[in-house]
């Protein structure tokens, strides 16, 4: 019926559909935005660090921690950086602080023109283009093994744009002061300047703002350069371009540019985990002004959840997994249960409790080729945490692990094992899209074994620990991340950290401590001038961060601690961690083989249970 005609017409429509060149916006905007050139610092990290360099001794050892460091603390560091930078920036009219965020009138009008142009093109051909593009995307998915073979689906063409049924911050008034005052905005847009995601406020309302952002990116690009960041008095604006997507963070959090860019990368990966990099590239290759929100509809909550986690969970900062402390005998027995419940093409079995990892069991051959990155696990944890949908029953869904392979899907079986509480979650990843029943059978086996061993009630008793268990007075909190030693380099990066307790019980105080850690982290990991050891006397606490070849450690003490005390405390802490490490970490990620004849790896001969090499950090003291 008319639908078929529709299709043909549309297919033709697309041939003439020439999406507006990405060069166009900068051309039209070049004059009105010329002043914005001053905002760009081709390598602000350099700048940033060169300025901070002036303020501290070249070589910072614990023994010669100086008062300068303390004076630095009196005034938040980025303030000074900012001042220096604004002094350097000759044309200070660019101090329209939130230029990227709100823009001056002229730029906004210009952006309006651009978006109108884009909209006009869109109206003509959007249906057609979108259909064809979706079909292409679908074809691509089929290539990857997840489509219906040889069937075109008219579903993909039904032109009705479904409004996302679940709103969170989407209704916010983007002109209100409260909107501007959010600590961290994140925007995702396409190269054509089309809004894809905004953390706060609706994307439609922000289309002109995003148009300006894209104009900035394109303008700098037209000069064969790449815009990386804009610093203003209160905000840091960080840009990240990944393929056809542009991600922008506008932050007043005083985090380093590097950290903010890392967070944007997480947002990008989360999008990839839902759509794959290959299909996104394919879509935009065929239609530059495709509205990606169509495909992300319903997933806003997952991105919102990710950004909240990134702000509140140091796992992301440390790029490591926080596993739930568990008696090693219990953890081993859980791993064995998972190891026994296997089926062909199963590659990962993951057990999660209270949003923390309990254990992870991996297919031998797969893991010998590639290692599971913490970021992929974070994305999975976020997906499970951000959606209540999993509580309904057993879920079977395609999912991509971007760091494992950004272009292909796994099929994830997700089910809670303790309804209705829904705290213990099983995640089984298979490479076979048809494997639902086989994988669901694995869950049945796991469930039975767990009942037999009374595992659920044992897991329920497991909890994070209090810093008081360490038995070091003045120590308020810490984060400890051991580094992989060569012998167990296949191990997942992990860290351990106690609960945040008083005085860090309130959300504000937690955030303040995390901000201090972020600051320490940015100093330790500064690209131009990394530090190994920082003793930082802040107003209400004293922090000590230390990185060695064996570990990375952040500690927080009461403000009255002396340097000598802190050193003794850290020695004790490290000794305690050593004693408890079997409980705090997944020491030997177990493996299984689902293929009858596992191919021999060149690295073979390494037994699963060997390499008990300790991390040897005590020798450093």
């Amino acid at each position: 019926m008319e639908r078929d005609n529709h299709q043909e017409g549309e297919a033709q429509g697309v041939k003439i559909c020439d999406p507006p060149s990405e060069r166009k916006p900068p051309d039209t905007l070049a004059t009105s935005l010329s002043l914005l050139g001053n905002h760009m610092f081709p390598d602000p990290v350099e700048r940033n660090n060169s300025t901070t360099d002036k303020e501290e001794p070249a070589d910072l050892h614990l023994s010669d921690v100086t008062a300068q460091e303390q004076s630095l603390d009196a005034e938040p560091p980025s303030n000074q950086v900012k001042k220096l930078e604004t002094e350097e920036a000759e044309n200070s009219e660019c101090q329209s602080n939130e230029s990227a965020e709100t823009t001056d009138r002229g730029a906004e009008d210009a952006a309006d023109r651009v978006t109108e142009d884009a909209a006009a093109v869109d109206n003509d051909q959007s249906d057609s283009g979108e259909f064809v593009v979706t079909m292409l995307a679908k074809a691509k998915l089929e290539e990857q093994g997840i489509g219906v073979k040889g069937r075109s689906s008219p579903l993909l063409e039904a032109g009705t744009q479904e409004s996302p049924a679940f709103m969170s911050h989407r209704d916010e008034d983007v002109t209100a002061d409260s909107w501007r005052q959010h600590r961290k905005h994140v925007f995702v847009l396409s190269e054509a300047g089309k809004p894809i995601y905004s953390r706060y406020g609706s994307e439609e309302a922000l289309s002109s703002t995003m148009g300006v952002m894209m104009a900035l990116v394109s303008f700098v690009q037209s000069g064969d350069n790449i815009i990386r960041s804009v610093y203003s008095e209160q905000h840091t604006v960080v840009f990240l371009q990944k393929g056809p997507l542009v991600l922008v963070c506008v932050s007043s959090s005083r985090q380093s540019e590097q950290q903010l860019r890392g967070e944007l990368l997480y947002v990008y990966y989360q999008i990839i985990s839902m759509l794959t990099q290959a299909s996104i590239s394919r879509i935009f290759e065929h239609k530059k002004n495709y509205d990606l929100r169509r495909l992300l509809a319903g997933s806003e909550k997952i991105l919102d959840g990710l950004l909240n986690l990134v702000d509140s969970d140091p796992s992301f900062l440390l790029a490591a997994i926080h596993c739930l402390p568990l008696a090693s005998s219990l953890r081993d027995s859980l791993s064995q249960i998972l190891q026994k419940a296997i089926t062909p093409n199963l590659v990962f079995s993951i057990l999660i409790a209270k949003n923390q990892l309990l254990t992870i069991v991996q297919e031998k051959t797969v893991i010998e080729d590639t290692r599971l990155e913490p970021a992929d696990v974070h994305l999975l944890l976020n997906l499970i945490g951000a959606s209540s949908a999993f509580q309904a029953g057993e879920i079977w869904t395609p999912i991509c692990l971007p760091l494992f392979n950004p272009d292909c899907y796994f099929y994830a079986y997700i089910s809670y094992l303790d309804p209705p509480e829904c705290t213990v979650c099983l995640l089984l990843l298979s490479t076979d899209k048809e494997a639902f029943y086989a994988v669901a059978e694995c869950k049945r086996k796991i469930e039975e074994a767990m009942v037999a061993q009374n595992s659920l009630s044992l897991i329920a008793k497991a909890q994070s620990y209090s810093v008081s268990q360490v038995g070091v007075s003045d120590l308020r909190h810490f984060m400890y991340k051991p580094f992989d030693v060569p012998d167990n380099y296949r191990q997942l990066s992990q860290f351990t950290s106690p609960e945040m307790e008083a005085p860090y019980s309130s959300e504000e105080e937690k955030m303040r401590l995390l901000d201090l850690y972020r600051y320490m982290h940015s100093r330790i990991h500064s690209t131009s001038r990394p530090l190994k050891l920082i003793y930082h006397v802040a107003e209400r606490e004293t922090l000590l961060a230390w990185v060695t070849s064996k570990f990375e450690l952040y500690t927080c003490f009461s403000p009255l601690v002396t340097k000598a005390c802190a050193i003794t405390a850290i020695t004790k802490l490290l000794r305690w961690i050593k004693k408890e490490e079997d409980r705090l970490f997944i020491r030997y990620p177990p493996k299984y083989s689902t293929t009858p004849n596992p191919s021999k790896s060149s690295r073979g001969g390494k037994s699963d249970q060997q390499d008990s090499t300790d991390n040897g950090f005590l020798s450093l003291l």
Partner: protein
Amino acid sequence: NISFHGGESPKGTLRVKMVLLGSSGVGKSSLALRFGKDEFRSTTPTVGCAYLTRVVHLSDVTLRFEIWDTAGQEKYHSVTPLYYRGAHAALLVYDISKRETFIRAQVWLKELEKQYTPGSTVMWLVGNKGDLAQDRQVSVQEGQALANDRDLSFTETSALAGDQVSELLIYKKAVLGLIESPDLTKETFGNKGPKFKDGPHIYH
């Protein structure tokens, strides 16, 4: 003689694969939850597909409904056939307060009709959110007319209020013709379930 808790031992268990299809936000998951657990709670968008089971005991047979609650979001459409393949029953769900979801349901219908030889799958058209009658954009008559035209069964439900949901299950069983042909029992009854031509229209 229909009991959901059944005391007498059934002759056999029938596996009934049922799939829910429709736009994002029409209430497929809420309906599934109503079927599966007789609960209502607001849900977040389904990721991929949720699988629930419900066992219904009848006097002479036990039905094990395997409910595949698909995600309405467009990004999952390419994988949806994974879930509706081999379904004995399909519920095409729309939201009576959103016309575009009704249009979308018809598109799903076309898709299903392409995939199936007539009679192999029993299809129901379900207008959900009956509790939003004040915002109604699709009339009962329209739904009924479409159902008659395409030889579907039709009902309106409210997952929120629980209206007609269990009835839908019971009638589905009737529609599947199970009671009439107990020979089809045992583990699976294949794709040959006779289609109930004039399905019991429980909406009047």
